[in-house]
């Protein structure tokens, strides 16, 4: 496909954005006096900042590019990743789990596992999380360089290097500089900036697209021209056992409960934002403040996917999607719509918003990796008992190493695409059992360290086992499953993932309970205060106004999510 034709104003907007991103890092440099300031943002940030960062850290490349692609493939059914696949988990995290995370004074999720269970459970989580974040950062970097290579009109070869290497290096250096200078605070502040840029940058695209195709009704009419996209305006009405997203049970239990709670409630990348808040009240409000924009992000990323399909159905002469293999390349929905609707000027803004989404994903992973490596691996197992200044230095060096390893993994991704799919699959196996360990650990004092560890292990192994016995329809590689034998075929990879998650969670839950009752408790009630629900005094919220209280905010968020679900049923 042809590159975008950009003018001076598009480049100027990109340049101004990069100057501000680096400027924020530079402005925060003088506050980085100790390890806590660098790795935990000094636990001093206001709730609105951590709330928007909570969402922005998740608003990476997968969200913007991936959800628009899903919108083009499945229509409004993609909102299940939001209204049922995120909001209930965010409410649960705010009301029930943040008091333990924040109140226990744990500096990371793995450290909470150590306080609640034991060292081996912490080590399992710390090592798997550190590897996962660094690979995720590398994948974001690789995806950005690939997209920039396709879209931006700079092409060159310099020995073995091309523009791909240039874009990879530029994005890595920018993320490195601002995270090295300002640590977690810089990443969080920049995530807030990126959040506004992403919203304001994509808004003209959605408005122009909808106006052009005759509003919502015009879009629905054009989607009805093709049987494959008919009914795309419904989120639940078309769900059946043959739907690519799976059946109702799979969506509610697999996505809405296991995968969603496993991600939003235990993934340190997002929980770290809430842990950086200045008070318990702010920490609890963080996921709820983030939930408000989260509910409306589908209108920014899913509707463009539907607009793209409406344009294809009506054979719009100015819009097409490139092909990939035998089908369409849905990942190009957003870039091709930017090209179709935005003139030079706002085009620069849209492209900058796209870059910002990749960079927020990268920086979020690098800062989470930093904290886990420095506190949970280096300080715990390699060099304990050193001064705070020493760990500050290690945190800064880890930033550099983390970005360098991310670059390396980006090149691995460019060489072996399947390797990255395989690694992401392994990490997906770990997620569901981890939530089982947290659920039992936080709500029953009888759960032991042995129970949690072997529950995690057996849940992960059972996930791999089910994956080995099942395949999604149309699978062509063993990475998609069926590497032991094929006993069941799912309508899609998504339906397969939801089922694997449910089984892994169930196995982990049962094994954790059995082993916990078969082994002795090693922690006394006194040691578990602040870590287990029944042993922790009820949190008294210090919000001045009743409408600022987490419980009230949670009800408002829940009601809006239900109304949206009914409106788009």
């Amino acid at each position, binding site marked *: 496909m042809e590159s975008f034709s950009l003018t001076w104003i598009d480049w100027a907007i990109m340049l101004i954005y990069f100057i501000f991103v680096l*400027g924020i890092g530079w402005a*925060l440099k003088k506050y980085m006096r100790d390890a806590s*300031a660098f790795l935990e943002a000094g636990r001093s940030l206001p709730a609105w900042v951590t709330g928007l960062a909570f969402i922005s850290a998740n608003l990476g490349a997968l969200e913007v590019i991936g959800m628009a692609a899903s919108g083009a493939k499945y229509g409004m059914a993609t909102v299940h990743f939001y209204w049922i696949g995120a909001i209930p988990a965010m409410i649960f995290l705010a009301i029930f789990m943040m008091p333990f995370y924040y109140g226990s004074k744990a500096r990371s999720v793995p450290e909470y596992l150590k306080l609640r269970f034991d060292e081996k459970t912490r080590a399992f989580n710390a090592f798997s999380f550190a590897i996962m974040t660094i690979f995720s950062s590398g994948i974001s970097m690789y995806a950005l360089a690939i997209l920039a290579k396709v879209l931006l009109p700079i092409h060159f070869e310099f020995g073995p290097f091309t523009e791909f290497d240039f874009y990879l290096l530029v994005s890595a250096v920018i993320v490195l500089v601002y995270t090295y200078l300002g640590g977690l605070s810089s990443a969080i502040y920049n995530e807030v900036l990126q959040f506004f840029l992403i919203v*304001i940058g994509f808004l003209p695209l959605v408005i122009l697209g909808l106006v052009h195709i005759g509003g919502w009704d015009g879009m629905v009419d054009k989607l009805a021209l093709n049987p494959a996209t008919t009914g795309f305006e419904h989120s639940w009405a078309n769900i059946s056992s043959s739907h690519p997203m799976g059946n109702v049970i799979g969506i509610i239990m697999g996505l809405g409960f296991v995968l969603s709670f496993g991600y939003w409630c235990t993934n340190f990348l997002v929980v770290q934002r809430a842990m950086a808040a200045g008070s318990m009240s702010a920490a609890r409000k963080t996921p709820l403040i983030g939930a408000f924009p989260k509910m409306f992000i589908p209108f920014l990323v899913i509707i463009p996917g539907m607009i793209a399909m409406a344009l294809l159905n009506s054979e719009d002469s100015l819009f097409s999607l490139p092909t990939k293999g035998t089908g369409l390349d849905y990942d190009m929905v957003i870039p091709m719509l930017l090209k179709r609707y935005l003139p030079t000027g*706002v085009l620069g*803004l849209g492209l900058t918003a796209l870059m910002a989404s990749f960079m927020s994903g990268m920086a979020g992973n690098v800062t989470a990796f930093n904290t886990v490596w420095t506190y949970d691996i280096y300080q715990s197992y390699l060099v304990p008992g050193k001064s705070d200044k020493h760990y500050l230095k290690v945190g800064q060096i880890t930033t550099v190493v983390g970005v360098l390893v991310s670059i390396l993994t980006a090149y691995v991704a460019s060489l072996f695409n399947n390797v990255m799919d395989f690694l992401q699959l392994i990490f997906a196996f770990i997620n569901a059992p981890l939530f089982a360990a947290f659920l039992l650990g936080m709500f029953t004092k009888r759960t032991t360290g042995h129970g949690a560890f072997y529950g995690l292990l057996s849940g992960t192994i059972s996930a791999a086992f089910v994956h080995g016995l099942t395949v999604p329809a149309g699978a062509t590689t063993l990475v998609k499953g069926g590497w032991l034998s094929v006993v069941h075929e799912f309508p899609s990879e998504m339906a397969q993932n939801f089922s694997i998650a449910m089984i892994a969670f169930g196995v982990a839950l049962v094994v954790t309970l059995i082993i916990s009752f078969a082994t002795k408790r090693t922690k006394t009630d006194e040691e578990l205060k602040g870590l287990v629900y029944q042993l922790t005094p009820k949190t008294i919220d210090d919000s001045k106004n009743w409408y600022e209280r987490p419980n009230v905010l949670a009800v408002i968020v829940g009601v809006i999510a239900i109304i949206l679900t009914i409106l788009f049923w």
Partner: protein
Amino acid sequence: MGLDIKLPIGLMFAIFGVILSIFGLVTGNINLLSGLFMLAFGGFMLFAAWFTKKSKKKA
């Protein structure tokens, strides 16, 4: 952490707003309308940053 993030956000969007508004006026109106919207948003954030600073001084 000593930096009020509303200040750089407001400043960046105000600059974007001015550039896009002028560019839009010069070149029919999505650039002009987007520019004016960003100018308003940037102005609001700058006002909020000033108001926060003023409130802190009072306290």
